[in-house]
């Protein structure tokens, strides 16, 4: 079986001591920022990207991936004990997890969250190993027209699945695409939108944009709120769930894993959508929906399994197509590019040790996370007592160092501050920054593929929908259908409910 051979290659790479160490650093950092509210994986990965330049590509990706799925574990701890989502994907865990903690059952809630996540992580690792090779095979046949249509589909799906106004989300994508065009035009060598600033001729670094939009903007928004936390540290006495708990939650773990894996693959999906979806599903299938919100263990097990599964399967489009499905994946693509690796279907064949090593490391990382999260829970809880007024200047220092070190240039830090202000305005006006980041990274790629496709078709715009290009046609039809469905009033209401519900 080829898959076992591939996984074997992967595990040989993943258990190499150096890689194990970076995996460990990744999951520790991930848990840390997952536990701490106010800093998410996007800002953290952006912060660490410049440093990964000095690492080898395998170690760099293993560490960055660890941060993302590690954050899913850490986020649940804060949600259950403090009723604050440490991570946006743990918002729904607050509902029942915190109630369980108030009833003195914080231990079982934490244990089920960790065990469910572990199970989901194992399954998702296998899914990636099985699903990625055939997808990459198909993607190798893509021409510029197919790539352009795929990106359109990805961006449309990302806006449809983002919460809030659809038109505003599309507008944010367009704004991102436009900002992505700043810099030297590769075809003509013309400097576009650089306004005579030499630092802009290479374009705006998307690490800088991500740190501004997700880092500084977040901090400014957090400083508006007052610190007020109520922690149930003393109540984490017995960790092990009862037989009844296990009986109640195993089905929810299975359902959460399945739904999370599916939603993770979708462009625009990932951990956040998966957890919301799973909570809604659990409430629907439960015989006693009235228990939800009052400490139902299924309400913890389902979403927590789903967010971890979704976090991992969202690597599939990134690894096989080179298309990011969410902001974290956009940063992973950035990490590949820093290493001089062009993301896309060829990565699997040209760098099997990178591809399979990353996948195998996820399993290793998940194993570490269970150990880190269950016996050491007390240590993470202590972290929560650190006041925000110590945290945010520290975060700012690391972001500023990270941005400054990109090219030893003060101008980059200025740009970060500018995007921080823009991000803050967007928060106030309810414009989601995530679609903008996706547009930003896809902007130059889309233009390049559009140009090539039009050149090949001698200017015939129907090349994207011609019957000889069924894949391109299918992507565009799917995009149109998605937009129409979401624009229909009945569905729109439902969509709002899913995101607003109990939020």
């Amino acid at each position: 079986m080829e898959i076992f051979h591939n996984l074997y290659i992967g595990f040989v790479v993943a258990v190499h001591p150096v890689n194990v160490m970076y995996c460990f650093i990744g999951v520790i950092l991930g848990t840390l920022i997952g536990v701490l509210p106010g800093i998410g994986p996007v800002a953290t990965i952006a912060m660490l990207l410049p440093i990964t330049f000095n690492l080898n590509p395998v170690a760099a990706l293993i560490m960055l991936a660890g941060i993302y799925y590690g954050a899913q574990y850490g986020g649940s701890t804060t949600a259950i004990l403090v009723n604050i989502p440490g991570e946006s994907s743990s918002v729904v865990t607050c509902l029942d997890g915190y109630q369980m903690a108030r009833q003195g059952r914080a231990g079982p809630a934490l244990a089920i969250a960790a065990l469910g996540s572990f199970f989901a992580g194992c399954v998702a690792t296998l899914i990636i190993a099985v699903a990625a090779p055939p997808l990459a095979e198909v993607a190798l046949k893509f021409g510029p027209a197919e790539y352009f249509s795929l990106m359109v589909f990805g961006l449309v799906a990302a806006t449809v699945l983002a919460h809030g106004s659809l038109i505003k989300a599309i507008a944010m994508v367009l704004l991102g695409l436009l900002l992505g065009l700043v810099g030297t035009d590769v075809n003509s060598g013309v400097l576009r939108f650089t306004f005579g600033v030499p630092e802009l001729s290479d374009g705006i670094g998307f690490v800088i944009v991500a740190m501004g939009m997700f880092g500084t903007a977040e901090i400014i928004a957090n400083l508006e709120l007052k610190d007020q936390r109520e922690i149930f540290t003393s109540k984490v006495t017995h960790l092990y769930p009862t037989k009844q708990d296990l009986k109640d939650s195993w089905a929810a773990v299975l359902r959460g894993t399945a739904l999370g894996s599916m939603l993770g693959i979708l462009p625009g999906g990932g951990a956040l959508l998966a957890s919301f979806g799973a909570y809604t599903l659990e409430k629907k299938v439960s015989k006693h929906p009235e228990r939800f919100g009052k400490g139902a263990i299924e309400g913890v097990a389902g979403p927590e399994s789903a967010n971890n599964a979704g976090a991992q399967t969202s690597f599939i489009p990134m690894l096989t197509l080179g298309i990011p499905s969410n902001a974290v994946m956009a940063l992973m693509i950035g990490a590949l590019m820093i290493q001089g690796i062009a993301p896309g279907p060829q990565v699997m064949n040209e760098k099997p040790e990178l591809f399979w090593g990353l996948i195998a490391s996820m399993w290793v990382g998940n194993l570490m996370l269970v150990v880190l999260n269950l016996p050491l829970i007390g240590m993470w809880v202590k972290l929560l007592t650190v006041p925000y007024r110590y945290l945010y200047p520290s975060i700012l220092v690391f972001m500023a160092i990270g941005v400054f070190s990109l090219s030893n240039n003060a101008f980059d830090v200025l740009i970060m501050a500018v995007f921080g202000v823009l991000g803050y305005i967007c928060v106030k006006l309810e414009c989601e920054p995530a679609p903008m980041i996706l547009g930003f990274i896809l902007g130059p790629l889309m233009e390049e593929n559009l140009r090539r496709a039009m050149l090949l078709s001698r200017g015939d715009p129907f090349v994207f929908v011609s019957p000889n290009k069924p894949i391109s046609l299918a992507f565009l039809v799917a995009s149109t259908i998605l937009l129409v469905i979401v624009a229909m009033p009945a569905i729109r209401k439902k969509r709002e409910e899913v995101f607003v519900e109990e939020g």
Partner: protein
Amino acid sequence: MKVKSPKDFWAGLMFMGFGLFFTVWAVIYYQMGTAVRMGPAYFPTVLGGMLAVLGLIVFFGSFAVEGPPVPEFSYRPLILISLGCVLYGYLMKPLGLVGATAALVYVSALGGHEFKWKEVTVLYLILVFFSWAVFVKGLTLPFPVWPEFMGY
């Protein structure tokens, strides 16, 4: 005409502003080319136009559909956090890691709810030491540690 949804009103204006800016700038300064051989202005013009149209829709929608008001801006953290970052960047060369970190930590700490000199100073010392140990010693990034005038 009365603005019913202030958030959409301003968001619409913002999108229109960005869209028109990119379109107009591209049309004036760059070559349009043809659909076969697209010039540098082609893609931004189309995108900017679409953005402006969407902005217009959001803008007009704000007169029709009721929406929540724009929450108040807290200018204190907004200005002080941004200023701290900018100072860090521009003070790095003249004042070194020691000076730049001081500017960022003290200025951004002023943007918080409470400011205690002692606490912030301890935090500053820890962060400077950590930055130096990890980034200058560990990762050998070429940052000046001390201010220029001190002759290092």
